[in-house]
């Protein structure tokens, strides 16, 4: 940054710059960090915590200073400083957590903040800083070598071995629920992950392929889920009949919503879908007679397998356990649902892969790359965007129906803005349309979300991640996806 301005960077310069950043940090935090609002009864009171502002300013200063040191080839020193701060913070936190209540006051003096969350946050930020500095330190060393050799590290396996590995992985996925180590809890997480992967893939059509920002994707998921629940409860529709209806309903809603908006600049879509997601949630909460309000819908019928039910056998031979001749257990249903969701995931995977090679898929990517050029070539941008939006919505609708069938209970709680952001984060992290990257990102994020202790931080982390990924690697943290046409051209040419 400073190299461009031509100023010589020296210690003094870095010092004053860090001082400036620290001052900014103190200004930003002065009221929000320095004071805490406490509702006591009807009156509102303040806790004074001004020392925290000083601590924030100090840590911001130190962090910025370390970054500056790295610029003037004192990287090793800054690495030591950051790891020292990190180690100090974590020991202090652990000490104050472990000591009993009575002697806590003494150990709390070691900690810079009285608010525990800030202590944690500072240590995590410094850990990140430490990793970044190490990365920079070693990158500088290796950059010359790699330039000379000009060799990219590529992981390519023999085609046959690749095939065998893929088949083995698929077999593992299919047989997973029958393994001994997989219990109900793990199976539940696996099913959740699969659902998120499918949602991520669906959204990747909209965001990754067509380049439209959909911030209310979860609304279509909700529509699918409620469609199945209501159809099966009120009209006795079976799961297999409701499933296509749920998808179609979500797609139709996508078209209705997308039609007025997609004619216009892309940014409008983002805010309209943002509002739409909130509206759907509001309708679900307030339309008590129809949707059950905040309590949601209970006792959604389980899907049947060829007309056989997953119920306890009553002797009339219409349950799955009697049909297959196995002992009845509630586990069977969850295994069945896992396999069902897995097969849907395969279906969606295959569908998107095929779609990308079809003219419509290429048109999506073309629209993303250059809309004006597309219009000049005679493509109709509105229709192309609309198909992408509706296809994404349809996949969310299917996933919603599966979700409702799997849980047996749905409520507006499951369809909040947070969910939309999580799915978007999966797509952004995974690399905007790269199916494997998205699957990997979904696994990572869902495991992160499963860590209950970090509940307070996870949304914060999602926000930070999205900003950083956009700045640092805008085409996805895990992988990137170039338009499919390029790939085809390099292998067999475009017909």
């Amino acid at each position: 940054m400073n190299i461009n301005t031509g100023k010589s960077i020296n210690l003094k310069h870095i010092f004053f710059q860090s001082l400036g950043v620290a001052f900014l940090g103190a200004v930003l935090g002065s009221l929000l960090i320095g004071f805490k609002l406490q509702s006591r009864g009807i009156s509102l009171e303040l806790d004074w915590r001004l020392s925290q502002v000083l601590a924030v300013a100090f840590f911001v200063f130190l962090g910025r200073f370390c970054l500056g040191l790295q610029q003037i080839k004192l990287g090793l020193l800054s690495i030591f400083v950051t790891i020292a701060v990190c180690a100090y913070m974590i020991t202090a936190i652990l000490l104050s957590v472990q000591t009993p209540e009575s002697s806590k006051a003494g150990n709390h003096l070691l900690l810079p903040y009285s608010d525990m969350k800030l202590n944690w946050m500072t240590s995590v930020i410094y850990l990140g800083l430490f990793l970044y500095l190490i990365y920079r330190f070693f990158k500088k060393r290796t950059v010359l070598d790699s330039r000379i050799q000009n060799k990219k590290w590529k992981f390519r396996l023999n085609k046959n071995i690749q095939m065998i590995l893929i088949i083995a992985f698929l077999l593992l996925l299919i047989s997973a629920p029958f393994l001994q180590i997989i219990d109900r809890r793990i199976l539940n997480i696996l099913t959740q992950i699969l659902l998120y992967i499918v949602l991520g893939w669906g959204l990747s059509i909209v965001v990754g392929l067509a380049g439209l920002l959909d911030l209310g994707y979860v609304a279509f998921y909700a529509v699918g889920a409620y469609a199945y629940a209501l159809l099966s409860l009120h009209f006795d529709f079976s799961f297999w009949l409701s499933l296509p209806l749920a998808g179609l309903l979500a797609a139709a809603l996508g078209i209705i919503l997308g039609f007025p908006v997609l004619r216009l600049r892309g940014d409008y879509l983002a805010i309209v879908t943002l509002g739409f997601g909130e509206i759907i949630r509001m309708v679900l909460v307030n339309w008590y007679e129809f949707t059950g309000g905040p309590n949601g819908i209970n006792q959604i019928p389980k899907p049947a397998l060829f007309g056989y039910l997953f119920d306890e056998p009553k002797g009339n031979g219409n349950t799955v356990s009697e049909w297959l001749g196995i002992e009845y257990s509630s586990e069977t249903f969850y295994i069945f649902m896992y396999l069902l969701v897995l097969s849907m995931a395969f279906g969606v995977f295959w569908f998107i892969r095929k779609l990308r090679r079809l003219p419509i898929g290429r048109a999506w990517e073309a629209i993303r790359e250059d809309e004006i050029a597309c219009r000049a070539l005679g493509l109709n941008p509105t229709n192309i965007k609309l198909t992408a939006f509706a296809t994404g919505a349809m996949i969310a609708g299917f996933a919603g129906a599966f979700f409702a069938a799997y849980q047996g209970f749905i409520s507006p709680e499951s369809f909040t803005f947070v969910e939309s952001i999580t799915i978007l984060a999966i797509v952004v992290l995974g690399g905007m349309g790269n199916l494997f990257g998205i699957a990997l990102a979904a696994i990572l994020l869902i495991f992160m979300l499963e860590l209950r202790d970090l509940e307070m931080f996870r949304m914060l982390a999602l926000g930070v991640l999205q900003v950083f990924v956009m700045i640092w690697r805008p085409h996805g943290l895990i992988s990137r996806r170039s338009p499919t046409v390029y790939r085809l051209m390099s292998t067999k040419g475009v017909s």
Partner: protein
Amino acid sequence: MGYFLEQLINGLSLGSIYGLIAIGYTMVYGIIGMVNFAHGEVFMIGAFHAVIAYLVLQALGITLLPVALIIVLVVTIFLTSAYGWTIEKIAYRPLRGSFRLAPLISAIGMSVLLQNYVQLLQEARPKSVPSLIQGNISLIESEDFSVSISYLRLFIIIATVVLMVFFTMLITKTALGRSQRACEQDMKMATLLGINVDRVISLTFVIGASLAAVAGLMFMLFYGVVDFYMGFIAGVKAFSAAVLGGIGSLPGAMLGGILLGVIESLFSAYFSVEYKDLAAFSVLVLVLIFRPTGLLGKPEVEKV
């Protein structure tokens, strides 16, 4: 009739708040062509700053209301515009010239980040603030009905008018306003003519954030409750107001805000309070269908 007039006044003051937020959206959109999703959160931070600043002043013993309000106003504007400046610097400036979706995703990330930052520091529970400005004057007294306007609403409306006059002067008369309009028209040309575009964009964010801060203060006075989630719905509504008035047009944003406020308060008075957010959203969709350029906006010409 009396009820209607009261709702109208209610809508006017609510609309003033929306209008002030909408100006931030419309200015940023006009100059760099992106929707600043984090703007609703800036408004929320403004409201929190106002509450805390007021309570600090009370603790320090400054209880005379006009003095306290002015100090709160100044402090809130200063601190909140620091947030606006920082957001632009961190999340948007590095992305100028990146692909189209990048600043939008960064903006939504920033919005989530700020929401949860405030939630972490100040807890999720809504904080109710005692009403500070009380009393009202009656406008019309007749046998059938009486209409009164509270000092609070009067304060909001007058403050908005004063701000708007000041702001219009700033844009039309000063050098800053001129360079801002220049950047809006053609950023490259403005750079060639020696305008520091980075500085102008930063100042745009600062102005937007300070107007949002005033809106936050007013919202705090008006509803008497703040929580970390309030910026979300207010942001969507203010954006709808900006679109209704014609995005990129400053008087349009104010007009759209006032119209939207009036529509919303009439809707909740005569139809349903639960679905009042739906009214704002329907306005947005209807405008996009029938008049995408808004009431005062110019049609957008896309150039290669």
